[in-house]
Protein backbone atom coordinates (compact mmCIF):
# COMPACT_ATOMS: atom_id res chain seq x y z
CA UNK A 1 0.00 0.00 0.00
CA UNK A 2 1.33 3.41 -0.94
CA UNK A 3 0.42 6.72 0.56
CA UNK A 4 0.87 10.35 -0.40
CA UNK A 5 -0.96 13.57 0.19
CA UNK A 6 -1.40 14.40 -3.46
CA UNK A 7 -4.55 13.13 -5.09
CA UNK A 8 -5.22 12.64 -8.79
CA UNK A 9 -8.10 11.81 -11.09
CA UNK A 10 -6.73 8.92 -13.13
CA UNK A 11 -9.81 8.39 -15.26
CA UNK A 12 -13.24 9.98 -15.57
CA UNK A 13 -16.32 9.57 -17.71
CA UNK A 14 -19.79 10.99 -18.17
CA UNK A 15 -22.58 9.42 -20.20
CA UNK A 16 -24.66 11.36 -22.65
CA UNK A 17 -27.19 13.35 -20.61
CA UNK A 18 -30.77 13.20 -21.83
CA UNK A 19 -33.46 10.56 -22.18
CA UNK A 20 -32.36 6.92 -21.89
CA UNK A 21 -35.69 5.07 -21.89
CA UNK A 22 -34.03 1.71 -22.51
CA UNK A 23 -31.40 1.96 -19.76
CA UNK A 24 -32.04 1.65 -16.03
CA UNK A 25 -29.96 3.37 -13.32
CA UNK A 26 -27.66 0.34 -13.08
CA UNK A 27 -27.08 0.34 -16.86
CA UNK A 28 -26.24 4.03 -16.79
CA UNK A 29 -24.00 3.75 -13.72
CA UNK A 30 -22.19 0.73 -15.16
CA UNK A 31 -21.61 2.61 -18.42
CA UNK A 32 -20.03 5.49 -16.49
CA UNK A 33 -17.87 3.09 -14.44
CA UNK A 34 -16.67 1.18 -17.53
CA UNK A 35 -15.88 4.51 -19.17
CA UNK A 36 -13.90 5.76 -16.17
CA UNK A 37 -11.97 2.51 -15.76
CA UNK A 38 -11.09 2.46 -19.48
CA UNK A 39 -10.05 6.12 -19.32
CA UNK A 40 -7.85 5.29 -16.30
CA UNK A 41 -6.39 2.15 -17.87
CA UNK A 42 -7.24 0.01 -14.81
CA UNK A 43 -9.84 -2.62 -13.86
CA UNK A 44 -12.09 -3.25 -10.86
CA UNK A 45 -9.26 -5.43 -9.48
CA UNK A 46 -7.26 -2.23 -8.87
CA UNK A 47 -10.06 -0.42 -7.04
CA UNK A 48 -9.96 -0.44 -3.21
CA UNK A 49 -13.17 1.41 -2.39
CA UNK A 50 -16.36 2.44 -4.16
CA UNK A 51 -18.70 5.29 -3.21
CA UNK A 52 -21.92 5.73 -5.13
CA UNK A 53 -24.93 8.00 -5.12
CA UNK A 54 -28.44 7.72 -6.57
CA UNK A 55 -30.75 10.10 -4.76
CA UNK A 56 -34.13 8.98 -6.07
CA UNK A 57 -33.39 5.27 -6.28
CA UNK A 58 -34.17 2.25 -4.15
CA UNK A 59 -30.92 2.25 -2.15
CA UNK A 60 -27.62 0.34 -2.11
CA UNK A 61 -26.71 1.61 -5.58
CA UNK A 62 -23.02 0.83 -4.93
CA UNK A 63 -23.74 -2.87 -4.41
CA UNK A 64 -26.21 -2.92 -7.30
CA UNK A 65 -23.46 -1.58 -9.54
CA UNK A 66 -20.82 -3.96 -8.17
CA UNK A 67 -23.03 -6.87 -9.26
CA UNK A 68 -22.73 -5.60 -12.84
CA UNK A 69 -19.11 -4.41 -12.96
CA UNK A 70 -17.31 -6.61 -10.43
CA UNK A 71 -18.07 -7.92 -6.94
CA UNK A 72 -14.59 -7.72 -5.48
CA UNK A 73 -15.61 -7.43 -1.84
CA UNK A 74 -14.24 -3.92 -1.37
CA UNK A 75 -15.94 -1.48 1.03
CA UNK A 76 -18.94 0.17 -0.62
CA UNK A 77 -20.33 3.50 0.57
CA UNK A 78 -23.80 4.63 -0.46
CA UNK A 79 -23.93 8.39 -0.14
CA UNK A 80 -26.80 10.84 -0.23
CA UNK A 81 -26.34 14.61 -0.07
CA UNK A 82 -29.04 16.16 -2.27
CA UNK A 83 -27.63 17.73 -5.44
CA UNK A 84 -24.11 17.48 -3.96
CA UNK A 85 -24.35 13.68 -3.87
CA UNK A 86 -21.84 13.08 -6.70
CA UNK A 87 -19.28 15.44 -5.18
CA UNK A 88 -19.81 13.76 -1.81
CA UNK A 89 -19.14 10.32 -3.32
CA UNK A 90 -15.94 11.66 -4.85
CA UNK A 91 -14.95 13.36 -1.60
CA UNK A 92 -15.53 10.09 0.29
CA UNK A 93 -13.19 8.24 -2.05
CA UNK A 94 -10.60 11.02 -1.87
CA UNK A 95 -10.59 10.84 1.94
CA UNK A 96 -10.00 7.09 1.87
CA UNK A 97 -7.16 7.43 -0.66
CA UNK A 98 -5.63 10.36 1.19
CA UNK A 99 -5.80 8.48 4.48
CA UNK A 100 -3.72 5.76 2.90
CA UNK A 101 -6.34 3.04 3.36
CA UNK A 102 -6.40 2.39 -0.39
CA UNK A 103 -4.28 3.35 -3.44
CA UNK A 104 -7.19 3.79 -5.76
CA UNK A 105 -10.93 4.29 -5.48
CA UNK A 106 -14.00 4.75 -7.62
CA UNK A 107 -16.80 7.31 -7.27
CA UNK A 108 -20.01 7.20 -9.28
CA UNK A 109 -23.26 9.14 -9.40
CA UNK A 110 -26.31 8.22 -11.45
CA UNK A 111 -29.88 9.45 -11.80
CA UNK A 112 -32.95 8.77 -13.94
CA UNK A 113 -34.95 11.98 -14.01
CA UNK A 114 -36.26 12.40 -17.54
CA UNK A 115 -39.92 13.34 -17.34
CA UNK A 116 -39.80 14.07 -13.61
CA UNK A 117 -41.97 16.99 -12.59
CA UNK A 118 -41.33 19.82 -10.23
CA UNK A 119 -38.97 18.83 -7.44
CA UNK A 120 -39.15 19.92 -3.85
CA UNK A 121 -42.83 20.82 -3.65
CA UNK A 122 -45.12 18.53 -1.76
CA UNK A 123 -47.46 18.00 1.13
CA UNK A 124 -50.89 16.45 1.35
CA UNK A 125 -53.93 18.66 1.68
CA UNK A 126 -56.43 17.91 4.46
CA UNK A 127 -59.08 15.39 3.55
CA UNK A 128 -62.61 16.80 3.71
CA UNK A 129 -64.62 16.23 6.91
CA UNK A 130 -61.51 15.73 9.04
CA UNK A 131 -60.92 17.86 12.06
CA UNK A 132 -57.84 20.05 12.15
CA UNK A 133 -54.85 18.29 13.70
CA UNK A 134 -51.44 19.80 14.31
CA UNK A 135 -48.42 18.26 12.65
CA UNK A 136 -44.68 18.75 12.38
CA UNK A 137 -42.38 21.24 14.02
CA UNK A 138 -44.49 24.26 13.02
CA UNK A 139 -47.57 22.66 14.54
CA UNK A 140 -49.35 23.27 11.23
CA UNK A 141 -52.88 22.06 10.55
CA UNK A 142 -52.13 21.70 6.80
CA UNK A 143 -49.20 21.71 4.37
CA UNK A 144 -47.23 24.96 4.68
CA UNK A 145 -45.70 24.75 1.18
CA UNK A 146 -47.62 27.21 -0.95
CA UNK A 147 -49.48 28.65 2.05
CA UNK A 148 -46.51 30.06 3.90
CA UNK A 149 -44.09 30.84 1.08
CA UNK A 150 -42.68 28.08 -1.09
CA UNK A 151 -40.55 24.98 -0.76
CA UNK A 152 -40.36 24.37 -4.52
CA UNK A 153 -36.80 24.51 -5.88
CA UNK A 154 -37.57 27.05 -8.64
CA UNK A 155 -39.23 29.33 -6.08
CA UNK A 156 -36.50 28.97 -3.47
CA UNK A 157 -33.71 29.71 -5.93
CA UNK A 158 -35.70 32.54 -7.52
CA UNK A 159 -35.82 34.19 -4.10
CA UNK A 160 -32.09 33.60 -3.62
CA UNK A 161 -31.39 35.54 -6.83
CA UNK A 162 -33.96 38.25 -6.07
CA UNK A 163 -32.47 38.72 -2.60
CA UNK A 164 -29.12 39.47 -4.27
CA UNK A 165 -30.91 42.03 -6.43
CA UNK A 166 -32.46 43.62 -3.34
CA UNK A 167 -29.08 43.81 -1.65
CA UNK A 168 -26.98 45.11 -4.53
CA UNK A 169 -29.39 46.20 -7.30
CA UNK A 170 -29.23 45.65 -11.05
CA UNK A 171 -30.56 42.08 -11.10
CA UNK A 172 -33.82 41.91 -13.03
CA UNK A 173 -35.72 39.37 -15.11
CA UNK A 174 -33.82 40.28 -18.28
CA UNK A 175 -30.41 39.91 -16.66
CA UNK A 176 -31.27 36.46 -15.31
CA UNK A 177 -32.60 35.48 -18.76
CA UNK A 178 -29.32 36.62 -20.35
CA UNK A 179 -27.41 34.27 -18.05
CA UNK A 180 -29.59 31.45 -19.33
CA UNK A 181 -29.08 32.57 -22.93
CA UNK A 182 -25.31 32.28 -22.36
CA UNK A 183 -25.51 28.73 -21.05
CA UNK A 184 -27.88 27.53 -23.77
CA UNK A 185 -25.49 29.06 -26.29
CA UNK A 186 -22.51 27.28 -24.69
CA UNK A 187 -24.26 23.92 -24.89
CA UNK A 188 -24.33 24.00 -28.70
CA UNK A 189 -20.69 22.83 -28.57
CA UNK A 190 -21.34 20.01 -26.09
CA UNK A 191 -22.49 16.78 -27.76
CA UNK A 192 -23.20 15.18 -24.36
CA UNK A 193 -25.61 17.92 -23.24
CA UNK A 194 -29.28 17.05 -22.89
CA UNK A 195 -30.17 20.13 -24.93
CA UNK A 196 -27.80 21.71 -27.40
CA UNK A 197 -29.89 24.31 -29.13
CA UNK A 198 -29.23 28.00 -28.69
CA UNK A 199 -32.19 30.02 -27.41
CA UNK A 200 -32.75 33.73 -28.01
CA UNK A 201 -33.35 36.10 -25.11
CA UNK A 202 -36.88 36.63 -26.42
CA UNK A 203 -37.57 32.88 -26.52
CA UNK A 204 -36.29 32.47 -22.97
CA UNK A 205 -38.27 35.39 -21.56
CA UNK A 206 -41.47 34.37 -23.33
CA UNK A 207 -41.31 30.70 -22.35
CA UNK A 208 -43.52 29.28 -19.59
CA UNK A 209 -42.97 31.11 -16.30
CA UNK A 210 -42.22 28.55 -13.57
CA UNK A 211 -41.31 30.79 -10.66
CA UNK A 212 -40.71 34.44 -11.51
CA UNK A 213 -38.11 35.39 -12.61
CA UNK A 214 -37.23 31.84 -13.76
CA UNK A 215 -38.94 30.63 -16.93
CA UNK A 216 -38.67 26.98 -17.97
CA UNK A 217 -35.34 27.22 -19.90
CA UNK A 218 -33.89 29.08 -16.88
CA UNK A 219 -34.45 25.97 -14.71
CA UNK A 220 -32.15 22.94 -14.62
CA UNK A 221 -33.19 20.31 -17.11
CA UNK A 222 -34.42 17.04 -15.61
CA UNK A 223 -32.69 14.23 -17.49
CA UNK A 224 -30.97 10.85 -17.16
CA UNK A 225 -27.23 10.50 -16.83
CA UNK A 226 -24.25 9.16 -14.93
CA UNK A 227 -20.64 10.08 -14.26
CA UNK A 228 -17.77 8.21 -12.59
CA UNK A 229 -14.17 8.92 -11.62
CA UNK A 230 -11.13 6.85 -10.62
CA UNK A 231 -9.03 8.48 -7.87
CA UNK A 232 -5.38 7.59 -7.19
CA UNK A 233 -2.63 8.84 -4.90
CA UNK A 234 0.59 10.38 -6.20
CA UNK A 235 2.90 7.53 -5.15
CA UNK A 236 0.83 4.91 -6.92
CA UNK A 237 0.50 7.13 -10.00
CA UNK A 238 4.32 7.16 -10.34
CA UNK A 239 4.24 3.38 -10.86
CA UNK A 240 1.92 3.70 -13.88
CA UNK A 241 2.74 4.48 -17.53
CA UNK A 242 3.97 7.90 -18.63
CA UNK A 243 0.79 8.29 -20.66
CA UNK A 244 -1.36 7.63 -17.59
CA UNK A 245 0.73 10.14 -15.63
CA UNK A 246 0.43 12.73 -18.39
CA UNK A 247 -3.34 12.45 -18.60
CA UNK A 248 -3.94 12.32 -14.84
CA UNK A 249 -5.50 15.49 -13.45
CA UNK A 250 -4.37 16.83 -10.10
CA UNK A 251 -7.02 17.42 -7.45
CA UNK A 252 -5.56 20.56 -5.89
CA UNK A 253 -8.50 21.06 -3.58
CA UNK A 254 -11.39 18.88 -2.45
CA UNK A 255 -13.79 20.58 -0.05
CA UNK A 256 -17.21 19.81 1.35
CA UNK A 257 -19.10 22.23 3.62
CA UNK A 258 -22.54 22.43 5.20
CA UNK A 259 -24.52 25.56 5.95
CA UNK A 260 -23.53 27.34 9.16
CA UNK A 261 -26.32 28.97 11.17
CA UNK A 262 -27.41 32.37 9.87
CA UNK A 263 -30.30 34.54 11.01
CA UNK A 264 -32.49 33.98 7.93
CA UNK A 265 -31.58 30.37 7.08
CA UNK A 266 -34.74 29.02 8.70
CA UNK A 267 -36.91 30.85 6.15
CA UNK A 268 -34.71 30.76 3.03
CA UNK A 269 -31.81 28.33 2.62
CA UNK A 270 -28.53 30.24 2.67
CA UNK A 271 -26.52 28.91 -0.28
CA UNK A 272 -24.11 31.82 -0.05
CA UNK A 273 -22.22 31.40 3.21
CA UNK A 274 -21.37 27.71 2.75
CA UNK A 275 -20.23 28.33 -0.84
CA UNK A 276 -18.07 31.25 0.23
CA UNK A 277 -16.62 29.14 3.07
CA UNK A 278 -15.90 26.27 0.68
CA UNK A 279 -14.32 28.63 -1.85
CA UNK A 280 -12.03 30.16 0.79
CA UNK A 281 -10.92 26.71 1.92
CA UNK A 282 -10.46 25.48 -1.66
CA UNK A 283 -8.35 28.42 -2.77
CA UNK A 284 -6.20 28.07 0.32
CA UNK A 285 -5.79 24.31 -0.08
CA UNK A 286 -4.93 24.63 -3.78
CA UNK A 287 -2.68 27.66 -3.34
CA UNK A 288 -4.47 29.43 -6.19
CA UNK A 289 -6.82 32.38 -6.33
CA UNK A 290 -9.90 32.98 -8.45
CA UNK A 291 -7.75 35.00 -10.87
CA UNK A 292 -5.76 31.83 -11.65
CA UNK A 293 -8.79 29.88 -12.88
CA UNK A 294 -9.17 29.26 -16.62
CA UNK A 295 -12.74 27.98 -16.33
CA UNK A 296 -15.46 27.40 -13.75
CA UNK A 297 -18.35 24.95 -13.75
CA UNK A 298 -20.76 26.22 -11.10
CA UNK A 299 -24.15 25.03 -9.88
CA UNK A 300 -26.59 26.96 -12.09
CA UNK A 301 -29.62 24.90 -11.04
CA UNK A 302 -31.53 28.08 -11.94
CA UNK A 303 -30.39 31.22 -13.75
CA UNK A 304 -30.96 33.12 -10.50
CA UNK A 305 -28.45 30.83 -8.74
CA UNK A 306 -25.63 31.38 -11.22
CA UNK A 307 -25.55 35.09 -10.45
CA UNK A 308 -25.04 34.71 -6.70
CA UNK A 309 -22.27 32.15 -7.16
CA UNK A 310 -20.13 34.53 -9.26
CA UNK A 311 -19.94 36.46 -6.01
CA UNK A 312 -19.76 33.48 -3.62
CA UNK A 313 -16.86 31.94 -5.56
CA UNK A 314 -15.19 35.37 -5.52
CA UNK A 315 -14.99 35.54 -9.32
CA UNK A 316 -15.94 39.21 -8.84
CA UNK A 317 -15.79 41.79 -6.08
CA UNK A 318 -18.43 41.49 -3.37
CA UNK A 319 -21.70 42.84 -4.76
CA UNK A 320 -20.25 42.94 -8.26
CA UNK A 321 -21.92 39.92 -9.88
CA UNK A 322 -24.15 41.95 -12.20
CA UNK A 323 -21.21 44.00 -13.49
CA UNK A 324 -19.14 40.82 -13.81
CA UNK A 325 -21.79 39.26 -16.02
CA UNK A 326 -22.37 42.39 -18.07
CA UNK A 327 -18.62 42.73 -18.72
CA UNK A 328 -18.84 39.50 -20.72
CA UNK A 329 -16.41 37.73 -18.37
CA UNK A 330 -18.36 34.45 -17.92
CA UNK A 331 -18.90 33.85 -21.67
CA UNK A 332 -16.66 31.19 -23.22
CA UNK A 333 -14.59 33.91 -24.94
CA UNK A 334 -14.52 36.06 -21.78
CA UNK A 335 -11.80 36.31 -19.17
CA UNK A 336 -13.48 33.82 -16.78
CA UNK A 337 -15.57 31.29 -18.74
CA UNK A 338 -18.41 29.89 -16.60
CA UNK A 339 -20.40 26.78 -17.51
CA UNK A 340 -18.95 26.21 -20.97
CA UNK A 341 -20.62 22.78 -20.78
CA UNK A 342 -24.02 24.49 -20.99
CA UNK A 343 -24.53 24.18 -17.26
CA UNK A 344 -27.44 22.51 -15.53
CA UNK A 345 -29.91 24.60 -17.52
CA UNK A 346 -28.86 23.08 -20.84
CA UNK A 347 -26.41 20.21 -20.25
CA UNK A 348 -28.93 18.90 -17.74
CA UNK A 349 -29.05 17.94 -14.08
CA UNK A 350 -29.32 14.21 -13.33
CA UNK A 351 -28.91 15.02 -9.64
CA UNK A 352 -26.36 12.50 -8.34
CA UNK A 353 -24.29 12.58 -11.54
CA UNK A 354 -23.92 16.37 -11.52
CA UNK A 355 -21.16 16.60 -8.90
CA UNK A 356 -18.87 14.34 -10.93
CA UNK A 357 -19.97 15.45 -14.40
CA UNK A 358 -18.86 19.02 -13.66
CA UNK A 359 -15.41 17.66 -12.74
CA UNK A 360 -15.36 15.65 -15.97
CA UNK A 361 -15.95 18.87 -17.88
CA UNK A 362 -13.03 20.64 -16.19
CA UNK A 363 -10.79 17.57 -16.71
CA UNK A 364 -11.59 17.59 -20.44
CA UNK A 365 -10.30 21.16 -20.69
CA UNK A 366 -7.16 20.87 -18.57
CA UNK A 367 -6.27 17.71 -20.49
CA UNK A 368 -6.78 19.58 -23.76
CA UNK A 369 -9.39 17.02 -24.81
CA UNK A 370 -12.55 19.17 -24.87
CA UNK A 371 -12.83 19.24 -28.67
CA UNK A 372 -14.77 22.11 -30.22
CA UNK A 373 -15.45 23.75 -26.90
CA UNK A 374 -11.85 23.58 -25.61
CA UNK A 375 -10.83 26.64 -23.59
CA UNK A 376 -7.40 27.17 -25.13
CA UNK A 377 -4.49 26.60 -22.79
CA UNK A 378 -6.68 25.76 -19.78
CA UNK A 379 -4.51 24.64 -16.87
CA UNK A 380 -6.68 25.16 -13.77
CA UNK A 381 -10.43 24.90 -13.28
CA UNK A 382 -12.99 24.83 -10.50
CA UNK A 383 -16.11 22.68 -10.14
CA UNK A 384 -18.87 23.65 -7.70
CA UNK A 385 -22.13 22.02 -6.58
CA UNK A 386 -24.82 22.88 -4.07
CA UNK A 387 -27.29 20.53 -2.48
CA UNK A 388 -30.13 22.18 -0.60
CA UNK A 389 -30.50 21.79 3.12
CA UNK A 390 -27.46 22.33 2.52
CA UNK A 391 -24.14 20.98 1.21
CA UNK A 392 -21.48 22.53 -1.01
CA UNK A 393 -18.72 20.68 -2.83
CA UNK A 394 -15.81 22.45 -4.50
CA UNK A 395 -12.96 20.78 -6.37
CA UNK A 396 -10.04 22.59 -8.00
CA UNK A 397 -8.36 20.61 -10.77
CA UNK A 398 -4.99 21.19 -12.41
CA UNK A 399 -3.22 19.88 -15.47
CA UNK A 400 -0.45 17.38 -14.84
CA UNK A 401 3.09 18.73 -15.12
CA UNK A 402 4.25 15.37 -16.53
Amino acid at each position, binding site marked *: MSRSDDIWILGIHMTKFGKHPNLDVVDLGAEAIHGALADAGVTMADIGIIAAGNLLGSGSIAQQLQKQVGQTGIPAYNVSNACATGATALRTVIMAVKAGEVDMGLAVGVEKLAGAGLLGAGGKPKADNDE*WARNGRFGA*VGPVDGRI*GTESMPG*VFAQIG*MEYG*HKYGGADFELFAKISEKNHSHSTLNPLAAYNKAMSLEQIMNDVMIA*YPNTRPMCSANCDGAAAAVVINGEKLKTLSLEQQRRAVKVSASILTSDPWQEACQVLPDVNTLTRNAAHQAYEQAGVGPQDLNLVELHDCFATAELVHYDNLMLCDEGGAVDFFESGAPYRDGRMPVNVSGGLQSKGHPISATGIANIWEVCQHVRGEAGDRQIEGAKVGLAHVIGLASACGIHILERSAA
Partner: protein
Amino acid sequence: MSTATQIPFVEYLNLEPTPHLVANECTSCGARYFDRRNACAGCFNTEFTSVDIPTEGVLRSFSIITFAAPGVEVPFVAAVIDCGGTSVRANIINCPPDPEHVSLGMKVRLATTVVGTDSAGVEAVNYGFEPA
Protein backbone atom coordinates in the same frame (compact mmCIF):
# COMPACT_ATOMS: atom_id res chain seq x y z
CA MET B 1 -71.59 37.88 11.82
CA SER B 2 -69.54 34.77 12.36
CA THR B 3 -69.62 32.65 15.47
CA ALA B 4 -67.08 30.14 14.17
CA THR B 5 -64.28 29.16 16.45
CA GLN B 6 -60.93 30.04 14.96
CA ILE B 7 -57.54 28.43 15.39
CA PRO B 8 -54.19 29.56 13.95
CA PHE B 9 -52.90 27.59 10.93
CA VAL B 10 -49.49 27.26 12.63
CA GLU B 11 -48.59 27.34 16.31
CA TYR B 12 -46.33 30.37 15.91
CA LEU B 13 -49.27 32.53 14.80
CA ASN B 14 -51.08 34.13 17.73
CA LEU B 15 -54.56 35.49 16.91
CA GLU B 16 -55.06 37.37 20.19
CA PRO B 17 -55.28 40.22 21.01
CA THR B 18 -54.42 41.08 17.40
CA PRO B 19 -52.77 38.63 14.98
CA HIS B 20 -48.98 38.45 15.30
CA LEU B 21 -46.17 35.94 15.06
CA VAL B 22 -44.34 34.53 18.06
CA ALA B 23 -40.82 33.10 17.91
CA ASN B 24 -38.78 30.94 20.25
CA GLU B 25 -35.80 33.08 21.16
CA CYS B 26 -32.56 31.56 22.40
CA THR B 27 -31.91 32.94 25.89
CA SER B 28 -28.17 32.88 25.23
CA CYS B 29 -27.56 34.33 21.74
CA GLY B 30 -30.97 35.72 20.81
CA ALA B 31 -31.44 33.57 17.70
CA ARG B 32 -35.12 33.23 16.80
CA TYR B 33 -36.95 30.14 15.56
CA PHE B 34 -40.54 29.65 14.43
CA ASP B 35 -40.39 25.87 14.74
CA ARG B 36 -39.75 23.63 17.74
CA ARG B 37 -36.02 23.22 18.40
CA ASN B 38 -34.10 20.83 20.59
CA ALA B 39 -31.26 23.29 20.94
CA CYS B 40 -30.12 26.53 19.38
CA ALA B 41 -28.46 25.93 16.00
CA GLY B 42 -26.26 28.93 16.57
CA CYS B 43 -24.93 28.36 20.12
CA PHE B 44 -26.28 24.94 21.28
CA ASN B 45 -28.13 26.44 24.26
CA THR B 46 -31.36 24.61 25.13
CA GLU B 47 -33.35 27.42 26.81
CA PHE B 48 -35.84 29.52 24.84
CA THR B 49 -38.32 32.28 25.61
CA SER B 50 -41.27 33.52 23.53
CA VAL B 51 -40.99 36.86 21.75
CA ASP B 52 -43.54 38.74 19.66
CA ILE B 53 -42.42 39.60 16.12
CA PRO B 54 -43.24 43.05 14.67
CA THR B 55 -46.19 42.87 12.28
CA GLU B 56 -44.71 45.36 9.81
CA GLY B 57 -41.73 44.71 7.60
CA VAL B 58 -39.93 45.15 4.32
CA LEU B 59 -40.06 42.74 1.35
CA ARG B 60 -36.52 41.40 1.01
CA SER B 61 -37.13 38.80 -1.68
CA PHE B 62 -39.96 37.16 -3.58
CA SER B 63 -40.90 34.82 -6.37
CA ILE B 64 -44.20 34.47 -8.20
CA ILE B 65 -44.97 30.77 -8.18
CA THR B 66 -46.91 29.36 -11.13
CA PHE B 67 -46.61 25.63 -10.40
CA ALA B 68 -47.32 24.25 -6.94
CA ALA B 69 -48.62 21.24 -5.04
CA PRO B 70 -52.27 20.23 -5.54
CA GLY B 71 -54.65 22.42 -3.55
CA VAL B 72 -52.43 25.50 -3.68
CA GLU B 73 -53.88 28.44 -5.59
CA VAL B 74 -51.53 29.73 -8.29
CA PRO B 75 -50.07 32.09 -9.11
CA PHE B 76 -49.09 33.23 -5.66
CA VAL B 77 -46.27 35.35 -4.29
CA ALA B 78 -43.77 33.60 -1.99
CA ALA B 79 -41.67 36.04 -0.04
CA VAL B 80 -39.10 36.75 2.62
CA ILE B 81 -39.93 39.69 4.84
CA ASP B 82 -37.61 41.51 7.18
CA CYS B 83 -39.69 42.25 10.29
CA GLY B 84 -37.44 44.51 12.32
CA GLY B 85 -34.44 42.21 11.95
CA THR B 86 -36.28 38.88 12.07
CA SER B 87 -36.70 37.14 8.72
CA VAL B 88 -40.17 35.74 8.08
CA ARG B 89 -41.42 33.47 5.32
CA ALA B 90 -44.89 34.20 3.99
CA ASN B 91 -47.14 34.68 0.99
CA ILE B 92 -47.92 38.21 -0.15
CA ILE B 93 -51.72 38.49 -0.11
CA ASN B 94 -54.39 41.08 -0.95
CA CYS B 95 -52.22 42.17 -3.89
CA PRO B 96 -52.18 41.15 -7.57
CA PRO B 97 -49.44 38.49 -8.05
CA ASP B 98 -47.41 40.26 -10.70
CA PRO B 99 -44.09 42.15 -10.80
CA GLU B 100 -45.92 45.45 -11.37
CA HIS B 101 -47.54 45.24 -7.93
CA VAL B 102 -44.87 43.41 -5.96
CA SER B 103 -41.45 45.00 -5.67
CA LEU B 104 -38.31 44.49 -3.65
CA GLY B 105 -38.10 46.84 -0.68
CA MET B 106 -41.85 47.50 -0.49
CA LYS B 107 -43.40 47.93 2.96
CA VAL B 108 -45.80 45.20 4.05
CA ARG B 109 -47.86 44.30 7.11
CA LEU B 110 -49.26 41.10 8.53
CA ALA B 111 -52.77 40.11 7.47
CA THR B 112 -54.84 36.99 7.99
CA THR B 113 -56.92 34.76 5.77
CA VAL B 114 -59.17 31.79 6.48
CA VAL B 115 -57.81 28.64 4.79
CA GLY B 116 -60.74 26.35 5.54
CA THR B 117 -63.30 25.01 7.98
CA ASP B 118 -63.23 21.50 9.42
CA SER B 119 -66.11 19.14 10.17
CA ALA B 120 -66.54 20.68 13.64
CA GLY B 121 -66.98 24.13 12.13
CA VAL B 122 -63.57 25.36 13.24
CA GLU B 123 -61.85 27.83 10.94
CA ALA B 124 -58.09 27.63 10.42
CA VAL B 125 -56.63 31.12 10.04
CA ASN B 126 -53.33 31.61 8.23
CA TYR B 127 -51.14 34.67 7.96
CA GLY B 128 -49.70 36.48 5.00
CA PHE B 129 -48.37 39.97 4.38
CA GLU B 130 -50.14 42.70 2.39
CA PRO B 131 -48.85 46.00 1.01
CA ALA B 132 -48.76 48.54 3.85
